[in-house]
């Protein structure tokens, strides 16, 4: 597991927590772990964010949303996209995982959870509707770059699974 220190000014945390992922509105970008640093100097804020997936179109929007949120509070803002260390699903906070589940997206488990489901080896992905682990992988790729498609074999509900990225 990659652990890196986040360096975020305490004063800025409540503002940044108000910014959500445009694709998953219940998830704040702080709980997602994409904000790596936010440093306040005089009235200027320098924010570093890291993409979840290289091609994630949400990153441009997230950058704009952060800028707007901080500007509304009277700060000058500079946003930098950093690639290293690379984002991992381990950076999603427990609160973020719960928000995902409540929203109907199964939170990431292990790197091979979807493959195991495909082969019928191990069924560990829980249905977000009824909680059953009797679920199957429909496709390793889902509605956005970060999700795979699952279906529950008990209640038949189709749902998204947030792919595990280590």
């Amino acid at each position, binding site marked *: 597991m990659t652990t890196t220190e986040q360096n975020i000014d305490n004063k800025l945390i409540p503002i940044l927590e108000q910014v959500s992922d445009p694709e998953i509105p219940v998830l704040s970008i702080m709980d997602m772990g994409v904000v790596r640093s936010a440093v306040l100097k005089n009235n200027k804020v320098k924010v570093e964010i890291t993409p979840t*997936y290289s*091609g994630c179109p949400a990153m441009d929007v997230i950058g704009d949303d952060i800028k707007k949120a901080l500007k509304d509070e009277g700060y000058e803002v500079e946003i930098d996209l950093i690639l290293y260390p690379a984002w991992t699903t381990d950076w999603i906070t427990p609160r973020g995982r719960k928000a995902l589940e409540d929203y109907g997206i199964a939170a990431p488990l292990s790197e091979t959870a979807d493959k195991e489901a495909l082969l019928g080896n191990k069924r560990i992905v829980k249905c977000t509707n009824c909680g059953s682990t009797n679920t199957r992988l429909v496709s390793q790729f889902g509605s956005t770059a970060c999700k795979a498609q699952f279906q529950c074999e008990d209640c038949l509900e189709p749902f998204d699974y947030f792919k595990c990225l280590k």
Partner: protein
Amino acid sequence: MMNKNLYNYILGVADNSLILGQRLGELCGHGPSLETDIALTNISLDLLGQVRGYYQYAAKILGGNASEDTIAFIRKERDYKNVLLVEQPNTDFAYVIARQFLFDVYHVLFLDQLQHSRDLTLSAIAKKSLKEALYHKRFSSDWIKRLGDGTDESHSRIQNAMNDLWVFTNELFQLTEADKEMLNEGIGVDVTQLKADYYNQLNDVLNEATIEIPEVKFFQKGGKEGVHTEHMGYILAEMQYMQRAYPNMEW
């Protein structure tokens, strides 16, 4: 002074992802099933995202008015350094999968080395891309097995695709001038060292998929030097149309 070798090296790496991403993008709304359609366009999106990282870096090296867009859209055919494999057409689903698999196995091996580059930007892009490429490889390998060990029809189609595309594999392991220079500086990857591993991995998957290893006496090459197959012009015509028709337009 600009580092011409580094610039060319980045293009050599990035153009593969750009052209393959563009090819896969053609399938948007045209995949054989909803799941494969979404999967292939997801892979396309990953590749194009990686390209942005490379081109933004290349634009910085080039300086002036260069941007990721000018590098992507307003070069001439001879200036694109991608291998011939990635520009081959989406003949049928078997070709799409075979082309993807032949590239993914290489891509993972390549990125696995590039992440140790002395160039910190390239190393960061490689680390990020590697995670995605592993996913792509898993997808294409699974489909190789399904098609090869599936019905008579799927077997013969994937065998044909493999026979036709195999001639483009050897080019992946050729060193260009920029490769050699960057290798000396500890920035680039020695692709010749990846070859044995590559063909071993192909053998393993193809054996399991009951696909015969094609026997090829002559391999195609040229893409890395900008000499492309007849398909390249059509890709560029479609990709560059807007920038050529409306120069400097923005989304």
